[in-house]
């Protein structure tokens, strides 16, 4: 790429994209089957979350080329969303409390 000043261009073999594409298909089918076979409890949740994170990881790392970006960009984009875990935890506590109050007073 002689005349592209701003980009070390993201050139990767098509075969890699096709493999990831296939993997995403398989992972989606698996997560659909979790529902189809009506799995319940911890197994269902573990599988759903694991498959979700695997798919998200593949999309971000390969399709969005994050695996080949410099650590400065990757950490600036991927670390801030971790703050959301705090929000989720706080709201989960809040929701549990809401449920208890409603069951006590709004029957």
């Amino acid at each position: 790429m002689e005349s592209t000043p701003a980009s070390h261009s993201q050139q990767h073999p098509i075969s890699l994209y096709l493999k990831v594409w296939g993997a995403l298909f398989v992972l989606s089918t698996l997560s659909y089957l979790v529902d189809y076979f009506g799995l319940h409890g911890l197994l269902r949740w573990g599988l759903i979350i694991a498959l979700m994170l695997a798919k998200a990881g593949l999309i971000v790392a390969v399709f969005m080329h994050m695996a080949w970006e410099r650590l400065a960009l990757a950490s600036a984009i991927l670390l801030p969303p971790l703050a959301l875990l705090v929000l989720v935890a706080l709201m989960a506590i809040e929701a549990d409390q809401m449920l208890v109050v409603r069951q006590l007073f709004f029957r």
Partner: protein
Amino acid sequence: MNAASATSAVGVAPPSALGWRGLVADWSSDQQAFVKVSWGKAMMWIFLLSDTFVFSCFLTGYMTVRTGSPVAWPNPSEVFALNVGGRPLPLLLIAIMTFVLITSSGTMAMAVNCAYRRDRINAATLMIITAGLGETFVGMQAFEWTKLILEGVRPWSNPMGAAQFGASFFMITGFHGLHVTIGVIYLLVVATRLLRGRYEQRANYQIVEVAGLYWHFVDLVWVFIFALFYLW
């Protein structure tokens, strides 16, 4: 904003080292932080980061109203089932929508690849196919909305269970559908410009990759909606 000015601006500590040393050097040398990343790509990533927070707020709000409701939540496998040959298949339409969106992500990735090889005809064709798949997705979503509205689902009530179901469903899938629709328009604009040879003069096809980032993000958000809204 190009790499030449960034590297010549600093005399001390060349930020060439990669890994953790590279991270510290990139952030601390009184210089452009995102070395060798064009402003277009950096801004798209920062926009996507902010969009991540918007969608996360919706999904967290959904989690809160769902766990906080003493009334049973409508079972998504039953609500979103389709009757095929007199037998209800759970989440059939949603599964097809998922595969359509993943396929569109695949064609988009190949469009970026073609663009960097300066194969602009194939790049534009693949982008138009991507936009077509995106439009198919929005069409199926409109079908799903119509089905639910005819069954009496409203943002404030529904016949199946907890009243918050409608508000969560319309808000989350509606906002995602809006993103897909904007993405389709965005892709078609860039594809048209590709075909007209607008990027040929500067020989810079990174705009296709930046448009691709947005499109993959739409697919990424759907992964979370599929798992948390439909499979929960």
